[in-house]
């Protein structure tokens, strides 16, 4: 089976997952208590206003019909509008999703770039001071609450040292005098494309602190998973035979062993990536980062279910794509994995 047919088949199967999630979230959101029409109407609506809105939004129709209407709009690429703000969800997500993805991707990159070498070395020298230090750091990274870490980071790098900004995606003067031409919604990429280097470095500057804070969890996992699986791989006969052949420690650790040991870490980091899309809301809130986490949290508090469904669907798609990517990566690394 080639990679392409594998990809197509997996995508085909994913459609069913997607439909399942769609059906579940749609019906669950309709049966939970709440009065969406009243929410749409705003403060202190009159009963007849609410009734009129009910008709306007189609909430008076039977549930299956409402569902069909929703699916029809969805197929047109329309996620609907927020009952709370009456804004188009498509427009909102086109701003919030890239912001979150930029943050989460940066965090995952940090986690992998730092975590893998650290995990490799910790696994290679078990019982060393380095090993114990990284274990401690990894446990701390996983267990320290992100909001606490965020506050400490702001205190140290903004209040005390003054090296990094407090929050936001760009400085106000940059957004006024060197505005970033929106294309992908990723400020760093957009700024780089348009060679707007002032904005590029400013956006990067703003990204560092929240990305570092958000990376603590995946970093801890990456270190632990890599360390544990290196420990296992290094006791394999093929490592002994590589040593017996006189291959250097560097090649053994970072090439021969790492390729065998990296997959568990990538799998878990892949999952934490998808989780972080909505799970980053505390970090987003503290750093005033206009992301999906913040967006969906407000929606939940307001029982704004078009937004809740839309974000759920987007996160589902991210999960599906990330899992697919991880599977493909595994097949790429391991010739014994049969795609199917």
């Amino acid at each position: 089976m080639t990679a392409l047919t594998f990809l197509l088949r997996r995508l085909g199967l994913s459609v069913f997952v997607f439909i399942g999630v769609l059906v579940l979230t749609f019906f669950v959101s309709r049966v939970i208590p709440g009065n969406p029409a009243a929410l749409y109407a705003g403060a202190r609506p009159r009963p007849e206003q609410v009734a009129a809105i009910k008709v306007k939004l189609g909430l008076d129709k039977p549930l299956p019909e409402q569902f069909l209407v929703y699916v029809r709009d969805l197929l047109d690429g329309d996620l609907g509008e927020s009952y709370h703000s009456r804004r188009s969800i498509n427009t909102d997500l086109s701003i919030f999703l890239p912001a979150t993805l930029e943050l989460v991707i940066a965090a995952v990159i940090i986690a992998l770039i730092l975590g893998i070498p650290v995990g490799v070395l910790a696994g290679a020298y078990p019982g060393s001071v380095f090993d114990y230090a990284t274990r401690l750091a990894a446990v701390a990274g996983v267990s320290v609450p992100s909001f606490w870490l965020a506050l400490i980071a702001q205190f140290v790098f903004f209040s005390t040292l003054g090296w990094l900004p407090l929050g936001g995606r760009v400085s106000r003067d940059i957004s006024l005098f060197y505005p970033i031409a929106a294309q992908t919604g990723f400020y760093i990429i957009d700024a780089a494309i348009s060679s707007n280097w002032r904005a590029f470095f400013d956006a990067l500057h703003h990204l560092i602190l929240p990305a570092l804070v958000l990376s603590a969890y995946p970093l801890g996992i990456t270190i632990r998973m890599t360390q544990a699986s290196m420990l296992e791989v290094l006791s394999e006969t093929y490592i002994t035979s590589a040593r017996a052949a006189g291959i250097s420690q560097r090649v053994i650790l970072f090439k021969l062993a790492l390729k065998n040991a990296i997959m568990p870490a990538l799998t878990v980091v892949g999952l934490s990536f998808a989780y972080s899309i909505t799970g980053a809301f505390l970090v987003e809130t503290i750093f005033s980062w206009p992301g999906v986490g913040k967006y969906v949290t407000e929606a939940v508090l307001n029982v704004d279910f078009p937004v809740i469904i839309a974000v759920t669907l987007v996160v589902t798609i991210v999960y599906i794509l990330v899992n697919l990517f991880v599977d493909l990566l595994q097949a790429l690394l391991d010739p014994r994995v049969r795609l199917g």
Partner: protein
Amino acid sequence: MALLSIENLTVEFNTPFGAVYAIRGIDFTLRKGEILGLVGETGCGKSVTGRSIIGLLDDNARITAGRILFEDVDLLRLSDAAMHEVRGNRIAMIFQDPATALNPLFTIGAQIMDVLRAHRPAKRGDLKTDAMSLFADVGLPDPAQMMHVYPHQLSGGQQQRAMIALSLAAEPDVIIADEPTTALDVTIQAQILDLLRVLQRERSISVILITHDLGIVAETCQQVVVLYAGRVAEKGAVEAIFAAPQHPYTRGLLAALPRPGSRGSDLQVIAGAVPSGLERIAGCAFAPRCEYVMEICRGQQPAFSDIKQAHQSACHLHETFADA
């Protein structure tokens, strides 16, 4: 001439149950261009001896005494960096199960190029040619294709040939073959042993062949060292020992071999069990199982005595046998 001399090698393992005496002081010599068989039962210390020579014992192992002289240099006194130069380059090793001794995620070609690159930095093109000629030397079909093949795509015999090619890559003087045919079919066994003999003859490589199979020793080796419970029971030229085994243990082993014509009769066994590695042994390690045991055997460890030239046995009884 002596290429590799093991002198009083003693190895212990730290375990939760206490020290395990894996090797209790062994001596033997490997001469240039010969195949030496290291035989014994499971746990007699033959693999540990191999690992000690190449300096790849597990972390809980400790060499408490002895010397390993390779061209008159004590390998046990070498720094890590110096020992790293010896591995692959001067002494290489092949393993029991080639399926686990080859890295599953790299092509055979990539693995052999790693070894080549580690020992002689050259241009990629040269490495590739060298790798393919090594594959041809060990009898792998279609060397060009081997460059792109993963271990799991090969048969067990081909995997072991590839492993041997890897061990030859840096042109070592000594190859330690740890049960190289145990995981293979009998017909493939014979082919792999043939290959080892050819390599020994054509490249004058010395081989330490670790095995539990006396048949393999008889066919393949010039010298044999019989280990029992971490000690050498008997050693010498293969013909001499097979013709007139002196140590009761060797005799027992040879008697236990099933022979054509012995069909229907019970297999001969050596009664009793190998002493635990946790025990300290005062006298002869074989005494509890020996049918000729004497008072002296239990209290005093027998010294080596020359039966003939190049045939030594560690037994208080040897004179009796010599007369017989």
